[in-house]
């Protein structure tokens, strides 16, 4: 199951040139970019691990793309996303966030039903990969 979260997630995967153009768009607006990765695909998993520090004062996308490739090399089977932060007063939030890499195989989620009081049913989703401890997930994909 293909995870859709962040920008562009309903589009075909971005090519490296398209990623670079999006990065340049953020840099032109002076939004510093950061790269994050995770192996927990749950949609409520908002806080991903940082890959290196956020990048400030960059002018050209080449620097960010280099770092993205570095992250891909280090985490070949993780989700990797790029965030652009808009520090303008009154906005001060992540302005762009999109996935630039995903595991080659995404097993998806199962629906879990728990019975509550009065036979009420509560639903939750559970990612199949999280049955495996973190760090060993998606390992089966790596040949």
């Amino acid at each position, binding site marked *: 199951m293909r995870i859709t979260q962040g920008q562009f997630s309903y589009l*075909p*995967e971005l090519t490296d040139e398209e990623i670079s153009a999006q990065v340049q768009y953020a840099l032109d607006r002076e939004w510093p970019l950061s790269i994050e990765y995770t192996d927990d695909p749950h949609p409520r998993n908002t806080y991903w691990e940082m890959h290196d*520090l956020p*990048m400030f004062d960059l002018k*050209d996308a*080449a620097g960010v793309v280099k770092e*993205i490739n570095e992250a*891909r090399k280090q985490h070949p089977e993780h989700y990797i996303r790029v965030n652009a932060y808009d520090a303008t007063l009154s906005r001060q939030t992540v302005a762009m966030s999109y996935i630039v890499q995903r595991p080659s195989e995404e097993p998806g989620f199962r629906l879990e039903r728990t019975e509550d009081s009065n036979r009420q049913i509560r639903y939750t989703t559970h990612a199949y990969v999280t049955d495996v401890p973190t760090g060993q997930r998606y390992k089966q994909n790596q040949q």
Partner: protein
Amino acid sequence: MKEQEGPGGPPKPKRAGFGGRPASSSSSSEESGEDGGEPQEPAEELLADDATIDLVADRAKAGVDEVLAELDRELVGLLPVKQRISEIAALLLVDRARRRFGLESERPNLHMSFTGSPGTGKTTVAMRMASLLHRLGYLRRGHLVAVTRDDLVGQYVGHTAPKTKDVVKRAMGGLLFIDEAYYLYRPENERDYGQESIEILLQVMENDRDDLVVVLAGYADRMDVFFKSNPGMSSRVGHHLDFPEYDVKELLDISGLILAKQNFRLDPEAEPVLRDYLTRRREQPRFANARSVRNALERARLRQARRLVTAEGDVSKDDLVTLIADDFLGSRVFDGEPDDESDTDAAGRPAEESAEEPVKESAGG
């Protein structure tokens, strides 16, 4: 080119080439081949073999002449440097023309080293160089990131690499100007972190040649030592530019430029005095060429201000913009002593010592 499957595509979408992962299917290999191609000027089609290119028009279109003329106007002297820069500009133009005929040639190595005495215009030229290369389409942004050892070398183990990489990332698409580059290498301390920084720079200069140009600057003798002890660095630098010292006439021209910019003018009588001043100052230690000229003019302005304030009567506009001979004759250079510049040094040293003393005491006690 791009993937055709939409979100509603097959349940197991083939994401060939995505994520920079080595592609597993055969279709993706040609895709990555296309993606990895030159992204620049894809629309421009190749010219026929018998076509001709008007290099002069090309030159005008790129605005090269403007930058070179500006260089000529604003920088006095430096003939060998200017000549080299126009050669580089010509090479890049010809290279561009060749590419339009489909003649592939490797991108020329544009890393440079600027050597010369203090105040000979190394930083200024570097700034012009960045905009020149930008106009020629060699640098995508054409900004200048000026750094020194402090910005590149860390203070503890593991601090240097991120610091240097951060600087490199900031300089991507522009020009990385490393001032006093010889400080990076400290032979007296073999565990100095500078070496680590040099290694990263070497790698960047080799691998990211398309993305940035590195300019190393410093005093000639020390840079010689630096290059001798880092032969890899020397061979990766394509252009070694030596900035000659200014002679007195050039120094006078420089002062003329500085004065004109600040809306001052020299009294006709002051001119020979300034010439005399520069001749004497040039012989003294710690002469920093254009920078010394600027400092001398600053001090002349001080004396002029004092003269005007203490003088009786009204001051005209003419008085305000004119520096007269007396303003220069007040300098200590004419007493055969070193000028004020060294004075601040002498004053700075005792202050430094007194600041150190309490530290020594506390260390002893």
